[in-house]
């Protein structure tokens, strides 16, 4: 600062002179300075405005893309569901309809039998038992005293009684026979009921499927039309799936870590190389490769089982080849599981040996083996065998995460772009007001010459008799930044 002094011996006078010089210079440069500040303000505000607009348009584009993706995903999902239902119906109908001629024949046979039995029941109807009245009438006939007539009547009565007995017997026999026929019809009725039940359950199942298809079709129609509610629901469902798959993958990564640690140490016995890859010993890399191979085998197995669809080309393969690849994947997994189990046993042996060595070096006698000393070995072997199969399941959440990840990434991008747009808008406003404040500060600094100018302007206005104009000019001079 001192080197700016005009008179170094007199700093006060120097500072005053500098101040006066700065006042004169800044007053003279006021108009161009204001213009410059205004221009810079416009430049920055414009740049921020353009950035905000770009962010907004990009965010809108991303949201549009996300929406399209969600709709496509939803359509694909619903199409798959509808396809699956049709497949079920096809299967059910194929099964039921193939049985239908047989069922129909059975029903026909049963109905014919029932009809025949019914006819038989109807055709063997016994005569009405009217004998008792005839017997009574004969019994009540007055005897004229004639022995012959009386005897005759008695004979008639006897034969009437015998006829009545026979008629009754016939009636009972016929009724018993009809009951037997009707009794034999009961299983037929039961069978008919059962067959009707089967038909009913098949029809009910088909009706339920059609109801489900109706529901899916309704949803599909909504999604196809881009219904806001349906799209929101799909978006939420995707987010849920993503979160769940990420959680499951995190658990699987934990499992992979345990698996890796289980085989890393014994792997150094199998791969005793001193080289390193990327700073990691080859044995460690080999253990990592084994874990990744398990995941890869799991991905192929899931693909061949039709649970995931990572590789569309594999779906086009004939069934026999698919079965072959599935066999190879499962066989590979089994082999890897066996290797891991044996490595786990080897690991336990190495750990035991190291522990014994440490004790021996420390001069301690060997601790007697505990009764449960086999348990860790068995546990590790089982763990080594099971973990590869569990890791193989990772393919399912992995696929879900990848398929729903696009939506999440686009949503986050849209959010960030919106945030960027908002911040840019705020930045634009901040720049405008900042430069306006700078202009005001500039005027505050040169307030003395401005006031002098105002006073001179007022005086000259009075002398010309046009004070109002002068005042207005002065005010305008004081506020050149007033917007036109």
């Amino acid at each position, binding site marked *: 600062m001192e080197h700016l002094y005009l008179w170094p011996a007199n700093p006060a006078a120097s500072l005053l002179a500098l101040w006066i010089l700065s006042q004169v210079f800044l007053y003279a440069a006021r108009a161009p300075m204001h213009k410059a500040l205004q221009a810079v303000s416009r430049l920055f505000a414009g740049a921020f405005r353009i950035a905000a607009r770009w962010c907004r348009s990009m965010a809108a584009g991303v949201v549009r893309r996300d929406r399209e993706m969600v709709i496509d995903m939803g359509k694909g999902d619903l199409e798959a569901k509808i396809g699956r239902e049709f497949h079920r119906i096809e299967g059910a109908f194929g099964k039921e309809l193939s049985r239908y001629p047989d069922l129909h024949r059975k029903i026909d046979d049963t109905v014919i039998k029932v009809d025949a039995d019914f006819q038989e029941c109807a055709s063997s109807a016994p005569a009405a038992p009217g004998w008792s009245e005839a017997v009574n009438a004969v019994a009540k006939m007055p005897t004229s005293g004639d022995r012959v007539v009386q005897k005759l009547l008695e004979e008639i009565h006897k034969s009437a009684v015998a006829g009545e007995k026979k008629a009754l017997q016939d009636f009972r026999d016929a009724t018993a026979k009809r009951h037997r026929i009707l009794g034999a019809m009961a299983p037929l009725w039961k069978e008919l009921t059962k067959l009707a039940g089967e038909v009913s359950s098949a029809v009910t199942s088909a009706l339920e499927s059609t109801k489900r298809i109706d529901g899916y079709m309704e949803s599909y129609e909504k999604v196809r039309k881009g219904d806001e509610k349906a799209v929101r629901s799909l978006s939420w469902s995707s987010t849920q799936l993503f979160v769940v798959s990420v959680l499951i993958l995190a658990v699987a990564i934990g499992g992979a870590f345990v698996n890796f640690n289980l085989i890393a140490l014994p792997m*150094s016995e199998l791969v005793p190389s*001193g*080289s*390193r890859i990327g700073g990691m010993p080859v044995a460690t890399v080999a253990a990592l490769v084994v874990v990744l191979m398990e995941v890869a085998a799991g991905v192929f197995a899931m693909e061949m089982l039709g649970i995931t669809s990572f590789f569309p080309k594999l779906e086009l393969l004939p069934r026999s080849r698919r079965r072959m690849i599935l066999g190879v994947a499962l066989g590979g997994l089994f082999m890897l599981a066996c290797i891991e189990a044996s490595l786990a046993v080897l690991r336990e042996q190495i750990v035991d040996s*190291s522990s014994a060595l440490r004790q*021996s*070096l*420390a*001069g301690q006698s060997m601790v007697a083996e505990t009764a449960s000393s086999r348990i860790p070995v068995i546990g590790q072997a089982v763990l080594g065998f099971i973990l590869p199969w569990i890791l193989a399941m990772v393919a399912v959440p992995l696929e879900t995460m990848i398929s729903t990840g696009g939506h999440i990434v686009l949503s986050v991008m849209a959010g960030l772009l919106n945030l960027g747009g908002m911040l840019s808008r705020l930045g634009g406003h901040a720049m405008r007001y900042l430069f306006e404040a700078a202009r005001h500060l500039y005027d505050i600094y040169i307030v003395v010459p401005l006031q002098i100018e105002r006073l001179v302007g007022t005086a000259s206005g009075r002398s010309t008799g046009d004070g109002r104009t002068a005042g207005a000019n002065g005010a305008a001079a004081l506020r050149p930044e007033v917007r036109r």
Partner: protein
Amino acid sequence: MKRLALAIAALCASCTSGAKYAHAVVALVDVSGTYADQKAEVVNVIRRGLLPRLGPGDTLVVIRIDAESYTRKNVEASVKLDLRPSKANAQKLAFAGQLDEFSRRSVRAPHTDIRGAMMLGAEYLRETGAGRRTMIVFSDMEEDLPPGVKRDLAKDELAGVRVVAMNVKRLAADNANPAAYRLRLTSWEKQVTSHGAKEFKVVLEPEKLADLLDEG
């Protein structure tokens, strides 16, 4: 195709020798004067604190400090651990046997040639090409060269080596004047660091040796 070639090249470039990550340790054991009585304790420290800490691929050399230490005869035991853990454990057991034999043998030197042992140890360390090199000196750090013996360390004699003075025994004179003991250690620190050593540390407790090795 170019990308594949580049990827393979990158993979090859990332493959490095394991020696860079190995740890080589040289233990210098003083058997002269009053420190000769400490031999059994020193062997114990090596057995319990040092040997179990070494892993496959690491190297351990034990050198005796006596009147003239710069000879191969002073190498009491040496081992480069195999990369297979089971083999390495067997080697450690054999090495412990050699140490026991050294401990049982009665040796007492009339003079103390610490720098000669340091020079020999530094040569062994250089030969291993290990990424981490540590020299542990079990001595009272009082050098007493026999007449006619000259020991001049090269400027980079201990380049990249950590020197640890372990279990430094205080002499009778040190008890009367601790400043002499401290001055002795300071002069050793200056000497080893001026000849390229990464650092010079004094460790009193054997338990701390393990942590120190892990740090390196």
